[in-house]
């Protein structure tokens, strides 16, 4: 039976026995098993990619199922990476599948990508897209980039053969966190499928030397009117990526991430933060002798944002008023680094 598994591929002049062997020897690391990744993975497994690593710590949610069609209501308690692995192992038992129930971060990226022939970046996190881009560029690992917004999708292949190779920062220099995500504005389910499949297609073509891959090109695709553009890219990013990598945390500053810090964290890096007490005059108490006092009743968040000079921690009596203020400030500008002191003065 296995003899015939790839016969429709080996018959093709662009793949053949030789291309099929290259696929079998390849290791694809797929970061993100959601809209793009969950569609790409079964096709890569079907195509006989010898080793596939699936990376995702999320569990499927019912609102994912309109586009992540290889999950179902019985797989909601598993992680996406495990559920997808279970599916593709049955689809093609001849390949090796590795599951990493993790979110990619600077801490684990080396371990996640180790040994990859090609990486597919399929997350919906702008910081992760830059983390994976920078790491792959520095370490000369080919990367297939995909991204979607409502009805528009982008695909490109960053070959990363050397410093001159074009990468994500040559298209969009720095992470922009103000662009709404699929969960905020919606996305056409079929768009996620199309772009995920285009990513798988580029990876297969790259590995087998079939056709022309999207190196130095950004493909844009609009599903409402079917317009496609293949935009020729240019080297435009001048900074040293290794230096950028050293100083970047690749952590989102948005509301869903850390809004509180503990007294211990504050004290261990005290010089990094400005500290503002938002307690009213009658209850005010200094934590140390470098506290600014701005009673909450006098604060206009829009004006306050303008006045901040660096990373700032606010505190109140219990941490409730200060976290409310931090949320308001981040609503105004998500890139402002403001935190609330957890539990306020209670822990003092």
């Amino acid at each position, binding site marked *: 039976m296995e003899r015939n598994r790839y016969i429709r591929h080996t018959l093709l002049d662009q793949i053949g026995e030789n291309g099929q062997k290259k696929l079998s020897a390849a290791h694809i690391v797929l970061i*993100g098993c*959601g*809209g*793009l*990744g969950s569609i790409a993975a079964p096709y890569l497994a079907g195509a006989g990619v010898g080793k596939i690593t699936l990376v995702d710590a999320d569990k499927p949610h019912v609102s994912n199922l309109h586009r992540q069609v290889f999950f179902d209501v019985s797989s909601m308690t598993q992680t996406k990476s495990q559920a997808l692995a279970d599916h593709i192992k049955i689809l093609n038992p001849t390949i090796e599948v590795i599951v990493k129930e993790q979110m990619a971060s600077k801490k684990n990226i080396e371990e996640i990508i180790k040994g990859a022939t090609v990486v597919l*970046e*399929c*997350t*919906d*996190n*702008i910081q992760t*897209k830059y983390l994976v881009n920078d790491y792959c560029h520095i370490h000369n690992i080919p990367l297939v980039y*995909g*991204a*979607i*917004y*409502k009805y*528009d999708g*982008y695909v490109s292949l960053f070959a990363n053969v050397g410093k001159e190779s074009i990468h994500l920062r*040559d*298209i*969009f*220099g*720095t992470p*922009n966190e*103000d*662009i*709404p*995500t*699929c969960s905020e504005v919606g*996305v056409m389910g079929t768009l*996620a499928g199309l772009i995920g499949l285009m990513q798988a297609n580029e990876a297969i073509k790259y590995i087998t030397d079939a056709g022309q891959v999207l190196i130095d090109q*950004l493909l*844009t695709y*609009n599903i409402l*009117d079917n317009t496609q*553009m*293949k*935009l*020729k*890219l*240019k080297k*435009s990013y001048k900074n040293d990526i290794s230096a950028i990598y050293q100083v970047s945390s690749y952590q989102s500053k948005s509301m869903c991430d850390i809004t509180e810090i503990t007294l211990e964290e504050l004290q261990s890096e005290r010089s990094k933060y400005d500290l503002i007490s938002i307690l009213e005059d009658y209850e005010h108490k200094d934590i140390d002798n470098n506290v600014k006092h701005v009673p909450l009743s006098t604060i206009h968040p829009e004006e306050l944002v303008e006045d901040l000079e660096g990373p700032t921690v606010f505190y109140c009596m219990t941490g409730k008023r200060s976290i409310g203020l931090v949320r308001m400030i981040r609503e105004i500008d998500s890139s402002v680094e403001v935190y609330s002191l957890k539990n306020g003065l209670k822990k003092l």
Partner: protein
Amino acid sequence: MINIKYFGIAKEIVGNDVAFIESSTISVADLRQRMNEQYKAFKQIKGYMVAVNQEYAIDSQIINADDEVAIIPPVSGG
């Protein structure tokens, strides 16, 4: 007259897929400035790519009448 095509969220900000600007020639940097002034929400898509005749255009590039210009905003969905 320069014809500009908008993608993704830029389309929503401008309220149209395609719009013209009354100018026979303009640099990419000036086009960016003009867009940022005309549409305050363009701040949200800072770092967007400008393509001229289907090629990435740097800020100093001059756009001429009848060039095909596209504004491609960054996107993070996946």
